[in-house]
């Protein structure tokens, strides 16, 4: 990963006083809040597109990014767009106080808050410490050298209890009575064998058929499934052939069987 220092953002167009030095702020939102606080800019003057342009240019420049910085940008951009949207909407409808007004008011409150001012001073003091403190690098715990089966401690009764629990679960697991399923599966599955018979006699009587026609007239889901399985099995046994035609697939009897009459398919237990 490319190592990135926090980028510097220039907000020349929106900064009213040129005397304010452009500081190397860690995030653009920080910079904006700082400037707002010092009355150097007004939130109305912030051109969202201007900042977004810088942001996008920055993204293009860096293929690999420090995710932390990138996420700060995304958060900032989203925040600004939100404020701007609220502003635009409020210009048209005189609604409740806008986010912008709230922000400005909260900034004023913030200026008034003495406690906060003092805390900020102290925070800056702490910030200097931080630059030292981050250089104390800690290490991850050492992986245990040996598995610790010996330090495990159980009494034999734990085994007993575990078994009792298992047995009680097993009782619960005895299969539910069939009557519960009667509603769900109202009839026996359609036998594949019967379906295969049907399909063959239909092909013998009416000649080749389209694939979909063979499924038509099925009364239930299981009959459909049976038809599908029967088709597969008949193809496997080379009784019928599936051919691709213009309008889709056609099913015809395999030529060797065409002349035979009364074919009884010999499909073994695959239903």
């Amino acid at each position, binding site marked *: 990963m490319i190592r990135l220092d926090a980028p510097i953002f220039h907000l020349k167009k929106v900064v009213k006083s040129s005397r304010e030095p452009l500081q190397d702020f860690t995030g653009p939102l920080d910079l904006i809040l700082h400037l707002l606080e010092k009355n150097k800019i007004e939130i109305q003057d912030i051109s969202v597109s201007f900042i977004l342009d810088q942001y996008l240019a920055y993204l293009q420049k860096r293929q690999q990014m420090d995710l932390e910085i990138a996420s700060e940008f995304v958060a900032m951009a989203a925040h600004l767009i939100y404020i701007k949207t609220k502003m635009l909407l409020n210009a048209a409808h005189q609604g409740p106080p806008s986010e912008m007004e709230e922000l400005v008011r*909260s900034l004023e409150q913030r200026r008034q808050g003495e*406690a906060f001012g003092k*805390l900020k001073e102290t925070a800056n003091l702490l910030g200097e410490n931080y630059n030292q403190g981050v250089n*104390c690098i800690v*290490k991850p715990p*050492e992986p245990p050298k040996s598995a610790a089966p010996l330090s495990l401690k159980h009494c034999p009764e734990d085994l007993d209890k575990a078994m009792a629990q298992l047995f009680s679960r097993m009782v619960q697991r005895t299969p539910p009575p069939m009557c519960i399923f009667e509603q769900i599966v109202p009839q026996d599955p359609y036998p594949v064998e019967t379906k295969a018979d049907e399909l063959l006699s239909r092909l013998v009587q009416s000649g080749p058929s389209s694939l979909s026609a063979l499924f038509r007239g099925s009364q239930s889901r299981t009959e459909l499934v049976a038809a599908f399985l029967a088709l597969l099995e008949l193809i496997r046994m080379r009784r019928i052939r599936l051919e691709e035609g213009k309008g889709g697939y056609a099913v015809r009897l395999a030529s060797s069987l065409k002349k035979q009459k009364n074919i009884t398919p010999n499909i073994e237990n695959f239903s």
Partner: protein
Amino acid sequence: MEIKDIECLLEGILFAAGDPVSQERLCKTLKLDQKTVDTAAKHLSEQYKLEHRGIRLLKLEGTYQLCSAPEYAECIRQILNRNKPPRLSSAALEVASIVAYYQPVTRAYIDQFRGVDSAYTINLLLERGMIVEDGRLAVPGRPILYRTTNAFLRVFGLSSLEELPELPQNGEESNH
């Protein structure tokens, strides 16, 4: 056990642990009184500094932790291919300070104090392990309380919260 042996054992334990180990647990397991453990720790710590060793012993609010000597940080990062943690933004510093001085605090309290929504910054500090959730306040909504961690003390070069610089006087009294 002589004090020298205790020092060596302490070194081994703290090395293996990596994380801070509480004084209490050390005393209990080694069957030593607090004073002995503390003397050994202090001596070990001084020795590290005196001999310009590559490691340092930190005392953080009733716990001990080893860390690398700060003067080698740059070289270590280079070898291990690690980035220097980004500077804390002033927002993060503010939130960390509010939590440090007034802990345990709720998010609403921090928001009110700063006059802006601090959700993003609180999450950042949580991710960096500098603050943790510490129960909930017994009021409607049961908001989460936050407090600082040992990692906070470490990165701010403090060995306990008592070492926080005093706030300038006539600070307002405040509630959560």
